């Protein structure tokens, strides 16, 4: 068994996606800027992909820019909007549980003299729209809130926040990297002015992303060069990548509904199975308010990395919010913001499922996991203490 439960980190490229990409490596390999046949084929392919993405997001094809990924899209959205609209104000509102690709550009802007309000979230990892409303000032230029969180899967009240932004005529950026392909939405309905998407999270290729820019919204390019992507994102287009991203969006649109049902069934089975078999666990987030594929669980008394390594040895691949797996030595900022007790943060594991997971994989995991948890607990001085204290 080699089970992949880390689909929020990245996904397998769909075989249909890869098939669509292949000719653009070795046959239609032209530069879309070239006038000749090779160029024309590449140009057509990019335009087709543009419509495929637009259809999934419910936007016009002219309203999107291809980028190299979610991080670039977020940077371009936040900094590009503020730099293009200096009169809009110098205050930014975001939340504690954003991805670093939103938090860190915001912090960088703060160093450059912008003001930043980072609203807190509740124990379920959800922003309260009223907190956003309260944070709004006369000089608020931008609100940036993620659609769904990558670590715990908590879905944010994006439409409500969009309405508040609209009421106050403030630009609204949505990091939808984890939402696209997992929940169905229309960009126009949630009132997003800017929205980020990353190809590799939706069974598309790595190194591809999209920034939706609503008609009328101005964004300044962060890099300069040729005339690509309406001068907003210069650089020779990654044609095979873009083609793959387009196809991934087409597939996502077609299969979203059935996949949600399929994946959430597996996820629920995994959760209920764990709850039945293992004591002293905690679901981070609330089952009704998280992405259908995500399950972030804290196992008391043990540390996430060792659990992860033992699971990995048995062919189960997932990730953790533990400090010990990240380069930063700081435990998950998301779980901390949710006020999960520190030792429970250390013992957290994220299972993020995908369309390629199978029922057997859930069953196998439910067979393996309790023994490993028990083994680590037996080794843990915290567990012993608990047992001795009779808690």
């Amino acid at each position, binding site marked *: 068994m080699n089970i992949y439960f880390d689909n929020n980190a990245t996904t397998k490229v769909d075989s249909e996606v890869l098939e669509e990409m292949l000719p653009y490596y070795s046959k239609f390999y032209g530069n879309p800027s070239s006038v000749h046949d090779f160029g024309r084929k590449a140009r057509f392919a990019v335009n087709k992909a543009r419509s495929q993405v637009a259809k999934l997001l419910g936007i016009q094809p002219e309203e999107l820019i291809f980028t190299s990924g979610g991080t670039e899209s977020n940077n371009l959205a936040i900094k590009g909007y503020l730099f293009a609209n200096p009169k809009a104000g110098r205050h930014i509102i975001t939340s504690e549980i954003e991805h670093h690709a939103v938090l860190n550009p915001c912090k960088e802007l703060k160093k450059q003299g912008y003001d930043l309000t980072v609203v807190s979230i509740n124990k379920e990892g959800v922003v309260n729209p009223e907190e956003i409303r309260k944070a709004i000032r006369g000089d608020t230029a931008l609100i940036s809130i993620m659609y769904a969180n990558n670590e715990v899967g908590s879905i944010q009240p994006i439409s409500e926040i969009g309405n508040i932004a609209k009421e106050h005529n403030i630009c609204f950026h949505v990091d939808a990297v984890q939402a696209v392909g997992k929940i169905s939405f229309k960009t126009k309905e949630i009132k997003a002015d800017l929205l980020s998407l990353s190809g590799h999270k939706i069974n598309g290729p790595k190194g591809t992303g999209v920034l939706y820019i609503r008609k009328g919204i101005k964004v300044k390019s962060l890099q300069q060069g040729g005339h690509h992507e309406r001068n907003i994102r210069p650089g020779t287009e990654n044609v095979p990548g873009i083609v793959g991203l387009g196809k991934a969006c087409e597939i996502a649109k077609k299969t979203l509904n059935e996949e949600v049902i399929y994946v959430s069934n597996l996820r629920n089975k995994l959760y209920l199975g764990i709850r039945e078999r293992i004591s002293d666990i905690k679901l981070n987030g609330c089952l009704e308010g998280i992405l259908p594929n995500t399950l972030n669980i804290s196992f008391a008394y043990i*540390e996430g990395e*060792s659990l992860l*390594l033992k699971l990995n040895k048995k062919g189960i691949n997932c990730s953790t919010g533990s400090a*010990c*797996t990240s380069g930063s030595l700081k435990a998950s900022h998301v779980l901390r913001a949710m006020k999960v007790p520190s*030792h429970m943060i*250390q013992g957290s594991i994220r299972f993020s499922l995908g369309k390629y997971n199978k029922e057997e994989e859930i069953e196998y995991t439910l067979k393996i996991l309790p023994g490993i948890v028990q083994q680590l607990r037996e*080794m843990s*001085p915290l567990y012993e203490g608990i047992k001795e204290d009779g808690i």
Partner: protein
Amino acid sequence: MEYSKKVMEHFENPRNVGEIKNPDGVGRVGNPACGDVMKLYIRVKDDRIIEAKFKTFGCGAAIATSSIITEMVKGKTLEDALKITKKTVVEALDGLPPIKMHCSVLAEDALKSAIEDYYKKNSQ
């Protein structure tokens, strides 16, 4: 971040896991908030460590350093045991990834603290 084979071997088959009933010395260091807690038990005879056991809450490196230090001390005089440093522990494991170096401090500290505990008890 990659663990050496030696680290993985100790992580997967940790030596001397458990507790010693009525130990001659116990050291407990670390803090669950930081992700590592280690408890080290020793039994001492004629100023020599004849048995060592541990319990650890922590990452792969924390468990592996715990395991190897219990092997390293066994049979050593207390004086020699006190010469074990984080450096010797790391070397014995064929190295640790840079971000995991702090775990080796934990093992050294737990050992020192267990020996201290022994001296304290025996000076009474």
